[in-house]
């Protein structure tokens, strides 16, 4: 059942909604006061109860991640916020930084205290100039009030928050690429282990969290972890709370909608997104950023897990958007920002567009990814130009399979997913380009 919320978005429509006064009027900075009054371990336990699945794409439980940090550390510890938002189709973190930056600053204090850090770095992609300005403004306001500095809210726990900028590279969204970039290096991902919790920023224990993951933390401490988790219809999947859903592409009202976890794609597209442009049928759906597999709207759910009983027999449009619900049907929730293609769009051109993106953004460290992304793009160039062959089409899937699992970071899998799923699910469209000069294709992406 559709239940929209405003925990993160209450300030979005207000002219001065990003300022401290507006934030405090809505109960802002009351969560952190509670958190700082609790022992560190209790803060982590409360986060665990909230079942916040990482909002950056991988869906790892936030409280559990915090618990990996050393209880005692000789070295300083760091909280690093991933604000490199660059996954195609994803635009939620920018809205938080621009319109509700204090939620992130408050979340940083809570998170840093929970993991034993006294400094948080917010790694913002350089293009987001307004986000950086709003965060700097919020940090200055918080510091002036004494919420940051040597004694936040009178507690003996010194805390600083810094804004760091990237310089244009999607791969810096990958957490270890981000750490290298934060250290002033090329943003090439690192081999894991060691994991950031042991050896992260500047060789010190580090937790990397997404903007939204941290910005929702104050709400958890205001209302209590358990109660927060139960907002979700997927509480029994350990996928708690509310989150920001996005929808872009061929819908009448593209944008961001905050709702309880468990919203379906149908609700997102038709109830919130106003339906498909021109009231056309849906051709394809990408659930949460371009690195997720693409889906046809008529895919039927069938999973033996008893928790799937309510969804079996329905289509993917009616499966609640959750980290595990989507993972268990072979998909991925990703960033929870869906891309919708109506039947006016040509899936061959859509994949061509995405593979150009991945070729451009591959950092080039791993051979399968560096060579594979370029190779797939070149084959698609030929297919789109009417010069491809069926053997080459099959090679796209082979190359994509060879990238999968054979790279240092998950970029490779993210590039392979669209290639594999588009070719498998829209094969006749690709064949039409090869065999019939694309006679029955729209050859366009726009309606």
């Amino acid at each position, binding site marked *: 059942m559709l239940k929209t919320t405003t925990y993160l978005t209450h300030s979005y429509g207000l002219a001065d909604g990003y300022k401290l006064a507006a934030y405090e009027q809505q109960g802002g900075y009351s969560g952190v006061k509670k958190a700082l009054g609790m022992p560190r371990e209790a803060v982590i336990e409360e986060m665990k109860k909230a079942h916040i699945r990482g909002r950056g794409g991988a869906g790892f439980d936030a409280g559990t991640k915090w618990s990996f940090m050393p209880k005692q550390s000789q070295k300083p510890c760091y909280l690093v916020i991933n604000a490199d938002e*660059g996954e195609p189709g994803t*635009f939620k973190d920018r809205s938080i930084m621009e319109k509700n930056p204090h939620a992130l600053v408050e979340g940083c204090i809570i998170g840093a205290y929970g993991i034993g850090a006294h400094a948080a770095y917010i790694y913002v992609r350089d293009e987001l100039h307004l986000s950086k300005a709003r965060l700097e403004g919020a940090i200055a306001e918080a510091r002036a009030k004494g919420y940051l500095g040597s004694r936040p809210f009178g507690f003996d726990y010194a805390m600083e928050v810094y804004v*760091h900028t990237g310089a244009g590279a999607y791969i810096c969204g990958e957490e270890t690429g981000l750490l290298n970039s934060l250290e002033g290096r090329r943003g090439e991902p690192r081999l894991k282990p060691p994991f950031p919790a042991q050896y992260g920023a500047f060789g010190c224990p580090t937790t990397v969290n997404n903007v939204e993951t941290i910005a929702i933390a104050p709400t958890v401490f205001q209302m209590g972890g358990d109660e927060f988790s139960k907002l979700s219809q997927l509480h029994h999947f350990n996928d708690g709370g509310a989150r920001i859903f996005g929808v872009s592409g061929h819908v009448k009202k593209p944008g961001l909608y905050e709702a309880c976890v468990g919203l379906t794609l149908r609700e997102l597209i038709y109830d919130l997104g106003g339906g498909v442009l021109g009231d056309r049928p849906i051709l394809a759906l990408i659930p949460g950023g*371009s690195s997720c597999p693409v889906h046809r709207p008529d895919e039927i759910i069938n999973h033996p897990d008893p928790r799937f009983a309510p969804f079996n027999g329905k289509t993917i449009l009616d499966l609640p958007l959750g980290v595990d619900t989507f993972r268990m049907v072979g998909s991925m929730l990703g960033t929870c920002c869906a891309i919708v*293609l109506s039947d006016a769009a040509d899936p061959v051109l859509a994949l061509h567009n995405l593979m150009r993106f991945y070729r451009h953004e591959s950092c080039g460290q791993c051979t399968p990814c560096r060579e594979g992304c370029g190779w797939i793009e070149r084959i698609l160039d030929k297919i789109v130009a009417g010069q491809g062959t069926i053997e080459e089409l099959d090679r796209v899937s082979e190359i994509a399979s060879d990238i999968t699992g054979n790279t240092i970071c998950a970029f490779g899998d993210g590039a392979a997913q669209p290639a594999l799923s588009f070719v498998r699910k829209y094969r006749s469209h690709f064949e039409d380009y090869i065999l019939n000069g694309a006679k029955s294709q729209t050859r366009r992406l726009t309606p």
Partner: protein
Amino acid sequence: MAFALNAEQNQKLEQILSRYPNKMAACIPVLHLCQEANASWVSDDVIEFVAKRLDLPTAHVKGVVTFYTLFNQKPVGKHQVWVCRTLSCALRGSDKILEHCEKRLGCHVGETSKDGKVTLRTAECLASCGSAPMMQVDKTYYENLTVEQVDRILDTLVR
């Protein structure tokens, strides 16, 4: 002439340094600062300056500059325009926006208009997919674009 920062810019540099446990971490922010102070591009002089100032090998700084798209390794126009062309924007007509920019500016993607005022580029997803098509002009986002709006925006740049 060798590149240098003025007093105010130097103060900014010191401020940047104060945020990190070592000097290397300041590399990217300091490169941004210097690029801005050097007509929006990173010359060999800038690289040399940053390397010296942060006690880094020149090759390290050069490696960083070449990794990131937003460091310009050649002079650019007075203004920079990036049109996002990734899927969500493409689904809402970014190709028309781009085509129109090329026509209006009389240059192709990757080039600078003859009067030296505007460098036109494409960008990959700029986290504005819900308000596509969009473009970035210097530090400002313009969203839900129509061709008419693009005209008005470009007018202000080439004036």
